[in-house]
C-alpha cells in the first residue's frame, strides 16, 4: 500500500514537472526528484501508454512569431440526442483539423469550440459551412480572439521584475 502511494506521488510529481517543461531529460527529472533515471523512464512510459500524457507541445506566442493566424471561440447551442447526449455532435465537431479544442460547458450554451484559420473570413466560412448547419446545432455565436494575455499558465506580457541584489547574507 505504502509503495502504491509513493508511486502515485512520483507520477503526480513527474506530471507537474513535465507540464512546466516537457523538454527536460529523464536524467534531469530524476535528479530533481532524487530517484533513479530508470524509474523516471518507466513512469513516463506508463503515463504515455495509458495516454494520460497525450503529447508534448510548445506554447507559442503567435502574435510575436509573425505566423498569420486567426482564432475564434464559438459558443454552440446543441440539441442533445437521446442515446449519446452531447457526445456524438461534440466528437463530430472535434474531427475537423480547424478545431483546436471542444469542451462541454455549463451555462447559456453547450459547447465551447476553439477554431483557428489563416483569416477571419476563413474562420467565419468554416463556422457557417461546417458547424452551424449540423442537424443538432441550434445556434452559434463567434468571438474572434483579439489578443492573448495568458496561455497555458504563461503570461505573455513581460512582467517587470525587480532585480535582486547579487549578494545578500
Amino acid at each position: 500500500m505504502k509503495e502504491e502511494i509513493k508511486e502515485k506521488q512520483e507520477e503526480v510529481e513527474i506530471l507537474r514537472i513535465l507540464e512546466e517543461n516537457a523538454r527536460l531529460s529523464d536524467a534531469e527529472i530524476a535528479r530533481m526528484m532524487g530517484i533513479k533515471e530508470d524509474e523516471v523512464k518507466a513512469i513516463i512510459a506508463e503515463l504515455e501508454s495509458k495516454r494520460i500524457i497525450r503529447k508534448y507541445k510548445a506554447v507559442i506566442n503567435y502574435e510575436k512569431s509573425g505566423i498569420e493566424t486567426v482564432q475564434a471561440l464559438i459558443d454552440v447551442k446543441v440539441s442533445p440526442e437521446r442515446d449519446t447526449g452531447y457526445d456524438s455532435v461534440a466528437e463530430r465537431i472535434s474531427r475537423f483539423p480547424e478545431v483546436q479544442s471542444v469542451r462541454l460547458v455549463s451555462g447559456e450554451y453547450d459547447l465551447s469550440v476553439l477554431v483557428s484559420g489563416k483569416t477571419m473570413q476563413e474562420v467565419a466560412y468554416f463556422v457557417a459551412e461546417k458547424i452551424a448547419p449540423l442537424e443538432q446545432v441550434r445556434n452559434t455565436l463567434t468571438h474572434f480572439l483579439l489578443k492573448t494575455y495568458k496561455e497555458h499558465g504563461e503570461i505573455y506580457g513581460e512582467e517587470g521584475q525587480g532585480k535582486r541584489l547579487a549578494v545578500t547574507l
Partner: protein
Amino acid sequence: MDMMSDRIADRVKQMKGSGIREFFDIAQRMEDAISLGVGEPDFVTPWRIREACIFSLEKGYTSYTSNWGLLELREALSDAIYKETGVYYDPEGELLITTGVSEAADLALRAILNPGDEVILHEPSYVSYNPCTVFAGGTTVCVATGVEDEFKVRSEQIEEKITERTKALILSYPNNPTGATLSRKDLEEIADVANEHDLLVISDEVYGKLTYEGTHTCFASLNGMKEKTILLNGFSKAYAMTGWRLGYAAGNKEIIEAMMKIHQYAMMCAPITAQMAAIEALRCEDEVERMVNEYNRRRRVMVDGLNSLGLSCFEPKGAFYTFPSIKSTGLTSEEFAKRLLLEEKVVVIPGSVFGACGEGFIRCAYAVSQYEIKEALERIERFLTGIK
C-alpha cells in the same frame, strides 16, 4: 582636520565591518554574473498578495497602525500559528508585528540584555545576531558546529558554554547558511538544557516552512518552552516577501511588552501596506507549497551537482542553501569565492563570513532557476578543472 571617526560610539567603531566588502561590491556590479549569493527567493510575491495590497492602497489604508500591528493581522496570525504548531498566542499581548525578523531579533536582544550578559550563539549562522547582541550591550559566546554533525548544535555543546552571566540562547534552524535542520529529539535535548539552566531561547524560525524532509518543529511547542521562547518569524522567505519587511515576535506577555516598548519609540509600527498584504498571505498556503516543491527539486539538483563535482556537500534539509566543502581545492573560502567570481562569474558566499568555523565551506543558494543552477554548475566545473 577634525576626525569624525572620534565621534562614533566605541561599540559601533569596534564592530568590525565585513572584511570582504570589496568582493561583494565587485559581485554586485558584475553584469552577467550568475549569483548563488542570494539570500532571498527568486519568486516574485504571489499575485494574490500583491493584488490585496494594491486594493488596500486604493481603499486608502495609508495610516499608522497600532504599535502592536493591525489586530486583524495578529488574530489571523495567532490562528495560523496555532494551526501549524499547536501553540496559542494571545493576539492582544503575546504577538508583536515588526519590520522584518531583523527588527524582531534586535528588539528581543535589547529587551532582555543587561551590560555584560552573555548570549550563546551557534555558528555558522546569520550575520546579524552577533552585532545586535553587542549593540545591545551583551556578549556573544559562540558554539562552533561542524559538518560531522551536519551543522546541528548539540545540547552538550550549549551546556559547556553556560556561565552565571548566560541570559539567552539563539537558535536559528533551519539554518542560514548551512541549510541544517534540527529534529524534534535534538530540540527536546536543547529544551532540557534551557529548562535546567533557566535560559531564554530566541528561536528564529523564518525558514521553518522551507523544510523538505520531516516537518519543522516549533521550539515553543516543546514541553514548557512557550514561556521561555521568544519566537521570531516572518513573511520574507516562505511567502517571497523580503522587500515588504514584515516579521513578528511571539512569546511571554512581559517580554513582548518590553519589546513593544522599544518598538513604539524606534519604529512606531510596521508599514500598513505590508501588514494588509500579510493578512492575504496567510490565506495563500497553496502558493507556499508550490514554491517549496520547486525549491525541493532545485535542492536535489544542486546537492547532486556539487557532490558530483567533488565539492562534498551534506544534504541540507531546510532553507534554500547548500554548504559544500571546498577544502579539496586547497583554497580558503574567500580565495575560492573571489577567484570563482573573477574567472567564471559565479557568485558564492565564503563560509567564513558566517563565523570562523565556516572556513573551508561556501554558501550556494538554490533560490535561482533550474537553468541558472545548471549553468552555474558548469562554470564551477570549469573553474575546478582550471585550478587543478
